[in-house]
């Protein structure tokens, strides 16, 4: 009797896992099929174009520009976003919820709208662009690309870092301070190392988001062309057969960088294991 009830229990458990796995496979296929299809079509049907693209200097330049600009955007996001994330995680204050909502706004608004808003503010007659116009130009320049990427990608970093800081017990900081560490030291030596995985994952997400940005960038900076603009451009002027190899190349490069970073973040010290 007992055996049987144990068995049915086990079976119902298995069933749940089975259904979950099935559903998971479907969504996974949904992600994988378009990507693999695109890469495979290119590699099988027209590998020459891919090779030619890989040697095309302007393609390589645009991919490098994408990676570089996204890196700069992520760096700025780290410098300004991590401190904000810490304050949000540690302090309660009036209007905190509103600030947290504001941070998510760039995720929600259409990117063309974001681009127009940024152009208005960072343009050479804009609120920020005008006073800086003698030192730095945003329109059709690298700073413009970085600004657009930063705008759409920084929420990912801030949210992830905030989660990281929230996961660190404030008592650890208290103890560190009782042992003679200033708050700055306690944050640097205890909190940041413990939240570092979250921060790293946030930085990766933010970088990836920045690379993929097109709508906001193209409005403020059509030139110099980043990879996504170039892909769009090639599609418009020469069609799918010209744009796909660039897209595939960008995808491969990003996938490699992504896998590498993920591996690093997975190897990152896991404190719950020895």
């Amino acid at each position: 009797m007992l055996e049987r009830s144990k068995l049915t229990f086990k079976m119902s458990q298995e069933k749940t896992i089975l259904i979950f796995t099935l559903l998971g496979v479907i969504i996974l296929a949904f992600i994988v099929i378009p990507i693999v299809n695109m890469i495979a079509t290119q590699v099988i049907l027209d590998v020459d174009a891919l090779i030619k693209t890989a040697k095309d200097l302007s393609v390589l330049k645009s991919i490098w520009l994408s990676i570089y600009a996204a890196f700069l955007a992520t760096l700025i996001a780290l410098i300004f976003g991590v401190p904000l994330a810490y304050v949000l995680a540690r302090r309660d204050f009036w209007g905190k919820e509103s600030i947290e909502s504001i941070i998510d706004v760039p995720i929600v608004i259409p990117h063309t709208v974001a681009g127009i808003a940024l152009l208005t503010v960072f343009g050479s007659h804009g609120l920020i662009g005008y006073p800086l116009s003698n030192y730095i130009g945003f329109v059709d320049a690298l700073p413009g690309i970085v600004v657009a990427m930063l705008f759409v990608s920084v929420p990912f970093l801030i949210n992830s870092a905030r989660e990281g800081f929230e996961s660190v017990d404030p008592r650890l900081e208290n103890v560190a301070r009782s042992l003679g560490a200033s708050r700055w030291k306690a944050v640097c030596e205890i909190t940041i190392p413990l939240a570092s995985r979250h921060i790293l994952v946030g930085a990766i997400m933010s970088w990836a988001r920045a690379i993929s940005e097109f709508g906001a960038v193209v409005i403020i900076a059509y030139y110099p062309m980043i990879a996504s603009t170039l892909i769009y451009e090639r599609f418009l002027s020469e069609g799918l057969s010209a744009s796909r190899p660039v897209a595939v190349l960008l995808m491969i490069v990003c996938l490699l960088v992504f896998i590498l970073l993920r591996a690093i973040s997975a190897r990152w010290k896991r404190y719950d294991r020895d």
Partner: protein
Amino acid sequence: MIEIKGLSKNWRGFSLKNVNLRVEKGEYFIILGPTAAGKTLLLELIAGFCEPNEGGIWINDKNVTRMTPEKRGTGFVYQDYSLFPHLTVKENIEFGLKIKGMPKSRIEEKSKEIMDILGISHLSHRRPRTLSGGEQQRVAIARGIVIEPSVMLLDEPLNALDARTQIQLRGELKKIHREAKLTTIHVTHDQTEAMVLADRIGVMMNGEIVQTGSPEEIFHFPLNERVAEFVGVENIIEGMVTSNEEGVATIRIDDHIMEAISSAKVGDRVRVCLRPESITIAPSKTLSSARNSFSGMITQLVPLGATCRIEIDCGFPLISLVTKTSAEDLGLRVGKGVCASFKASSVHVF
């Protein structure tokens, strides 16, 4: 020496009201109180993790009320140990010394010494997550002590441990304190812990220090009924003083007469407190030095491991604690008639 004057603080539903406290140098002071009495908050105020709304704190005659925690030199041990999970045991212990900029060789020496004392040298390269609760607590204590703090603050340090480890670590805390003569404030809700460890005890309830005194004073002469109840005085009986001869008062409880050492005057309505472990049980009325002896019937018997809690109806209820062995020897069971007796000096009257 720690001195706290008129300290008040409201924080997330906890509040401290006008706390006044003085802990002498080298003293082991225990703050005893039920959960949510504000004990941890008091410790965090002393350590400087938050600022009081009113009042002040002096450590060794220096006003530290507005000082940042890192300048106060307190050693803090939380109930959950709060070890730095990304550092090894050794790195945890050396954290405070490194921050202070102590030379490397000196750090090595000191951390080795403290690890030897606490018997954790073999764990030095392990990470906190891999340690047992008792081991983690030893590391936490070592980490606090090694910086030679002006005061050691312990927040329910034994609470999360199993009974055996509790007893073991209790002994070690006592030993370390005796050797290092470290001023210690230890917060707990556990009476045994307080009784065993404390030089003095402060009873804290609802954010106030209600009574301070030696363990003897607290446990046998609680200031009022609330304290009495909390410190485990299970017998609190109302009566009236009918005579008082040279400090030996006769108290009438319904039809019964009880003697107690007290200065209460004739005609006073009083409460009589009696700790359950002060009551001895005999099968029948015996001759003893005990002035008070009452016959009654056992109405309830609850085994508590090594001891047994017995409720006796002597016309008024009495609760007694006897060892398991004597309960067996005496053949105690519900319904059996027994005689409960206790000394007049065990009775506390207020």
